[in-house]
């Protein structure tokens, strides 16, 4: 499975690792919903770190779309919310 971290690139992540990613993802989602900044930044960076360390970084010239896409590492809680809700962050 290919995961993209916006602004960083793509990683190939094994299926076994998805269980852990799902858990981390859930924590981020809850934090976004509750608006809990501290939990958000902790769980979000844990999620990204997990992709970076467990995944295999794909070369830049790989022409493959991703199965999953994650916000840029410096995205704020508000930006993630915008990314989910409207068209603010992604230019048409």
């Amino acid at each position, binding site marked *: 499975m290919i*995961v*993209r971290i*916006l*602004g960083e*690139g793509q990683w190939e992540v094994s299926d076994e690792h*998805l269980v852990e*990613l*799902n858990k981390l*993802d*859930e924590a*981020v*989602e809850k934090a*976004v919903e509750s608006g809990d900044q501290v939990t958000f930044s902790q769980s979000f960076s844990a999620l990204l770190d997990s992709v970076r360390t467990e995944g295999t970084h794909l*070369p*830049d*010239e*790989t*022409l*493959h*779309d*991703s*199965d*999953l*896409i*994650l*916000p*840029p590492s410096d995205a704020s809680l508000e930006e*993630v919310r915008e*990314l*989910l809700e409207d*068209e603010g*962050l*992604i*230019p*048409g």
Partner: protein
Amino acid sequence: MSLMKRISLIFRSKANQALDKAEDPRQTLDYSYQRQQDLLVKVRRGVADVATSRKRVELQINQLEQQSNKLQSQAEKAISVDREDLAREALTRKSGLTTQINDLRVQHAQLQGEEEKLTLAQQRLQAKVEAFRTRKETIKATYTAAEAQTRINEAMSGIGEEMGDVGMAIQRAEDKTAQMQARAGAVDELIASGALEDVTAIGRGDDIARELDAMSKESDVEAELAALKSGSSPSPGAIEGGNNTQATPAQEERQKEEGQA
């Protein structure tokens, strides 16, 4: 996988909307390639813009640091001639500058970060565009229009996602830079208006530089006199270093009063 899934879906649908739509799917490849080139130009321009902003902030930091050093040496000089009031004034102004400088340093680091990010985005896009070009030529040479569709879709979605990513990076960098440029403009105006530059120069009755100048002229005369009396030539560094022991504080005070009279 809800959060990542949702973002992926939204992002992908945007990226797909941006793709097209030609009669012959193979034309789509050329059309997309053109848009990739355009985006490469845009991201290069983005890198240059951020670099310009960064250099501007660097220049401002240098200007303010020079000013700050000047105030520091004025404070030292003032202390060496026993004028704590002047030294205090110089240090107070310096502390104001230090706050400005620290603020600018934070901005500088942020701009540097944006510049690095955009440079990396440019490299990634460049690599993908190059891969796309090769793939495009292969597809056009190998397949009929009907056969090509699947391969084209693969290549297009791979590059489309990258283009969305880079487009977003450019936009974020632009937003951040715009905010900082507004603040940098304010600092420029401040420097231009002389509020910072002239803080120790002419214009104020109690000006530090002027008072110190007047005092050191008096001390110069005193030092030369002392040198003549002792039969040696005057040492030019003696006053600046504040180790001229010939004039007592009381004498200096008197000289100062005479100087001002």
